[in-house]
């Protein structure tokens, strides 16, 4: 049972394509768990179709090319069979880095703006307070954590309102470690440095 969904404005940004790829990957991870959001996405794409038909068409320059010329590379290969789709196809750096007491971080290898990776937390560990700028999404893959807006378990996505002042504290709950995929627009420092910089507690 999914209890935490992305903000409507976030899902819309995913539907229009105007989102860094690394954040699309986290959103898509939630979508694999959440039928409610898949339905909402289908409606948004239908809306995209309606708007596509509203605009004035522009003549094509060439002729209709023989479709046989199209070479499809297909989805990238599965490199992490233990992770749910689409993370199973996203390359990860091999090393886990300690970021705070009880927390480890492993970077996703995705070019483009923003950064992301896996965050692993031991039961009972706390990320004291953390600040974020812009969009920051985290989807739970195993275990659970709690913050000021409630408890997050497998499939739940955290999409807190970004603010210069908001500081979110999280704690791993239950007896299992918590594994999340996390991505951020993080405009200044990337990856582990960004993560550590934002832990102000």
């Amino acid at each position, binding site marked *: 049972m999914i209890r935490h969904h992305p903000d409507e404005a976030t899902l819309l940004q995913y539907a229009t394509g105007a989102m860094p*790829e690394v954040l699309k990957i986290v959103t898509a991870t939630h*979508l694999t768990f959440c*039928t409610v959001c898949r339905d909402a996405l289908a409606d948004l794409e239908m809306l995209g179709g309606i708007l596509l038909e509203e605009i004035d068409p522009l*003549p*094509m*320059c060439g002729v*209709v090319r023989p479709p046989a010329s199209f070479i499809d590379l297909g989805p990238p290969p599965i490199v992490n069979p233990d992770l749910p789709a689409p993370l199973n196809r996203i390359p990860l750096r091999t090393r886990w880095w300690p970021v705070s007491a009880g927390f480890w971080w492993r970077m996703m290898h995705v070019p483009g703006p923003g950064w992301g990776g896996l965050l692993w937390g031991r039961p009972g560990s706390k990320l004291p307070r953390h600040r974020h700028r812009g969009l920051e999404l985290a989807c739970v893959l195993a275990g659970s954590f709690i913050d000021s807006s409630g408890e997050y378990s497998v499939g739940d996505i955290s999409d807190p309102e970004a603010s210069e002042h908001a500081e979110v504290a999280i704690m791993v709950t239950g007896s299992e470690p918590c594994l999340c995929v996390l991505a951020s627009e993080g405009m200044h420092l990337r990856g582990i440095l960004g993560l550590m910089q934002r832990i102000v507690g």
Partner: protein
Amino acid sequence: MVASQNTSGAAVTLPLADRLILIQAVAQRQDHTAFVKLFDYFAPRVKALMIRSEVDPPIADEIAQETMATVWRDAAAFDPRKKTLAGWIFGIARDLRADVVHGERFVAAVRASDNAVDPPADQVMAIAEHQARLKQALENLPVEQTTVIRKAFLEEKTHREIERDLHIPLGTVKSRLRLAIRRLRSQLDDLL
């Protein structure tokens, strides 16, 4: 051969009833004539969509071509119970732009996961009715909400870019988008 077909102009309309027949003809018989009709209607619209989102004209043409090539190849995967043809094509074009323009390497993986679990087969919705309601609801939205919706979908703008373009605070951009989406979807609720 399809290659000889000239497409200097764009088809003005393509009735909803014809679309299903045409896409099924492509899916089942690789019918070139049916494909050309779909091409003449949709390719110039996809190109216009790309130009709106500031893609260079030659690339816009290329993406429109590739979008239609994907329609040709994946026609059998189109599920008319879940999607409209225009909505499906919008999604294909969006993903190709991500790949070609933004160099996104994992769009294919991300797209595959969107359909991870199929809805139950008996949950067949009257998709045409669904679309008609959505269209009507869109027309009834306040203008400040349709403006942000159009910018988001047609110009591929992020919330921050809309903030800059329209000189309205980020919070207002988001709340207008949220309100618009809630209103649009509320018109569909009793259909599901």
